[in-house]
């Protein structure tokens, strides 16, 4: 029945201006269409009057267009929406419907937006994410306690969405009565804008205040949305005071999100910020193995190692590559390893791993930071030069496995303790500083692309 109404609404939408549609049809529903007697639920007597006088013809036509021959159409007031069965979930998932409808309904949606596929059981734990997973488990045991707010960050495709939704799903499994909402930040501020425009700011706020657990994804998109930030800050404070669990995922740390109120940034980080890093080779193998098993596919260890070695961007691409290879090998009737050895996969390029020299590293690093390699190898204490030098030493040790003494020598330092300090510093910074991590990844990329 609700699907019918969605289709009818879609037809109506073509006939009336968008602001009128948003105003008059937002909270309507189809209460009954028994043998042609149509009953439409409306907000109050004023809306009833408008729909039955000004929009009757349009509604009747739209109903006919959807293959129903109405005998009569009547309107019934349905204010207390929460207590009545409403087509909310269905509306939210019907693509034919306009944005405004989708949003306004999602606002008061009693459902949590969580995808049941995302569970902790199918989240592969490795050294790249074990801390975050441990924190997630303790949230599931005791929401709103120690890890509140839970701030999760990491590059795209590393499983942020999976992990935060898995927390939501597990909480729900333990206590189905909990009010949980998963919402991408862009939806949060779009809903907020709509609520302000329609004068329902309070309602918006209240809806979030009722939650036991708020899960906000892609938080970095809040950049520049100051009003939404204020709103979130206020919701955050309310929930936090009530010991409600708040989970936020972002591709960078709060203090690296430009234009974010520093007070909010520090609040967000106070429960600890946990990162999902790019999985190491062994972890990548484990992920691939698990995914292959899940798909019920046969794949040789060598093929897995090969994929793991060659795809080092993120998990999403790793999985994408695996499923591509599995599919192709199935189509061609050969094993994945044979496929790879035949050279017909996109990743069938040889690794440059061992062909990089220390000079190349120094050149690339200095080029990246816009300094000369001479400057890099000088004794200059200027910040960006010093920083570049530290990065270079870090890469020399990680990529070429040079000893600290040798790494120091390469950049013109006599004392290996300076190199030790630099490497230690980069190693710890890289965990917290998202930009630094990106820079280093980019340099590595250039290094191996050359």
């Amino acid at each position, binding site marked *: 029945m609700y699907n019918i109404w969605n289709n009818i609404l879609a037809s109506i939408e073509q006939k009336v201006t968008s*602001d009128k549609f948003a*105003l008059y049809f937002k909270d309507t529903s189809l209460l009954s269409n028994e043998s042609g007697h149509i009953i439409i639920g409306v907000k*109050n*007597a*004023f809306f009833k*009057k*408008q729909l039955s*006088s000004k929009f009757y013809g349009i509604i009747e036509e739209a109903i006919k267009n959807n293959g129903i021959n109405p005998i009569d159409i009547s309107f019934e007031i349905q204010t207390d929406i929460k207590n009545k069965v409403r087509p909310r979930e269905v509306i939210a998932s019907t693509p034919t419907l306009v944005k405004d409808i989708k949003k306004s309904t999602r606002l008061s949606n009693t459902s949590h937006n969580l995808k049941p596929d995302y569970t902790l059981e199918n989240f592969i734990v490795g050294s790249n994410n074990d801390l975050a997973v441990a924190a997630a488990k303790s949230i599931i045991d005791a929401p709103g306690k120690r890890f509140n707010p839970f701030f999760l960050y990491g590059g795209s495709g590393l499983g942020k969405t999976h992990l935060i939704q898995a927390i939501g799903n597990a909480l729900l499994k333990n206590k189905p009565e909990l009010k949980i909402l998963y919402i991408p930040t862009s939806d949060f501020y779009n809903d907020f804008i709509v609520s302000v425009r329609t004068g329902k700011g309070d309602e918006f706020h*209240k809806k979030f*205040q009722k939650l036991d657990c708020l899960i906000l994804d892609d938080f970095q998109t809040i950049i520049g949305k100051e009003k939404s930030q204020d709103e979130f800050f206020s919701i955050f404070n309310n929930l936090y005071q009530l010991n409600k669990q708040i989970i936020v995922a972002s591709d960078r740390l709060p203090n690296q999100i430009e234009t974010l109120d520093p007070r909010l940034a520090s609040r967000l980080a106070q429960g600890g910020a946990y990162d999902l890093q790019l999985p190491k080779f062994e972890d990548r193998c484990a992920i691939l193995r698990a995914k292959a098993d899940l798909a019920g596919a046969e794949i040789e260890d060598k093929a897995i190692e090969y994929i793991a070695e060659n795809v080092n961007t993120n998990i999403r691409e790793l999985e994408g590559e695996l499923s591509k290879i599995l599919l192709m090998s199935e189509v061609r009737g050969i094993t994945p390893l044979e496929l790879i050895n035949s050279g017909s996969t996109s990743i069938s390029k040889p690794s440059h791993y061992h062909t990089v020299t220390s000079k190349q590293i120094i050149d690339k690093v200095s080029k990246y930071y816009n300094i000369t390699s001479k400057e890099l190898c000088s004794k200059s204490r200027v910040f960006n030069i010093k920083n570049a030098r530290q990065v270079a030493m870090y890469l020399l040790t990680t990529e070429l496995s040079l000893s600290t003494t040798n790494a120091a020598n390469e950049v013109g330092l006599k004392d290996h303790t300076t190199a030790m300090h630099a490497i230690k510093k980069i190693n710890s910074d890289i965990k917290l500083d998202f930009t630094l991590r990106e820079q280093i990844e980019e340099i590595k990329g250039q290094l191996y692309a050359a």
Partner: protein
Amino acid sequence: MEIEVSQEKLSKALNNVSRIAVGKTALPILSNVLIRVEKKKVSLVTTNLDMAVVDFLPVSASKDGVITIPAKLLAEYISTLPKGETIKLVAKDSKVTISAGKYSSTINGSLADDFPELPEINEKEAVVFKMGIDEFKNSINQVVIASSTDLTRPALTGVYFNTYDKILAIATTDGYRLAEKKLIKNVQSEIEVIVPTNSLQEVLRAIDENMEEIEMSFNNDLVRFRLGEIEIISKIIDASFPDYKKLIPKDNNIKLTLDKEELIRDTKLAALFARRSAGGSIVLEAKKPNTFSIRSVANELGENDSIIETKVEEEGKINLNSRFLLDALNVIEEKEVNLEFANRINPIILTNKKSSDYTHIIMPLNS
């Protein structure tokens, strides 16, 4: 459309209707006032689709027609014109020309097609009550203080009009306090309706000293208030109000009668000290044979203790939010107020000493 009317009358009418048309509206036309002339009857209408205000304007001359004009602009323009002028409004297409003595201007309006039609009260089915407007105003003021603004509980954001024992009573509660006023006795009809507090506040604002009576007509989904030349139509909140009579305790054993002004002063004194501590909590204590004291809960500012002499038969004390107590005392009409409480557990009941029309109860705070 054409009307001729005095500046005072038009300005007053616009003032009444334009309040709900200001600010951001969902549709641009909702910030307009509709002016309709039909058989020499002129009406000004605004609506926000939760309620509508209609003002019937007595005019000296008119020609039929209908137009909508930005309400705020028109109201401000007319109110700035000198008093005593006769104003002439002439609508042509979607423009309105206003002339008054040496002043003349044109305001861009819009056609009335998009203006919402107002729902109408079904007069046959309507339950109608009439009462003196001053009493109505006082009564509403006495209960709205306990009305909630929490939109997640729509039932509490309105005033509950209900009948029992042939009495029409109004009640509000926000979950922490409750106010009930018996409005009319010996009524024949029965109703059970929640009217939005916002709409009632609009009714209160429309009251002026020349009005004598208010007529309230209730339908299943609509209520209409008629006062003087004004009609206010409002939606009804479609929710069920809690069975509030059960919330009024019957076994409060500590009963005191106090001078209201003295109690207000002592409460204010204690509230000064209670301001910063949680909930503005103060302690009321009754001690035999004749001591009633109000004091602040000790905090960083210091302490305060006031004593009122009164006859005490049962001992006990109660912690209250000082703001709630003051709100209630400020709307009690008589000079002496009755307090009833039981040692800490039950809500406190405040009533007038003589009349039993008004009851206010406040939940105690944890001490």
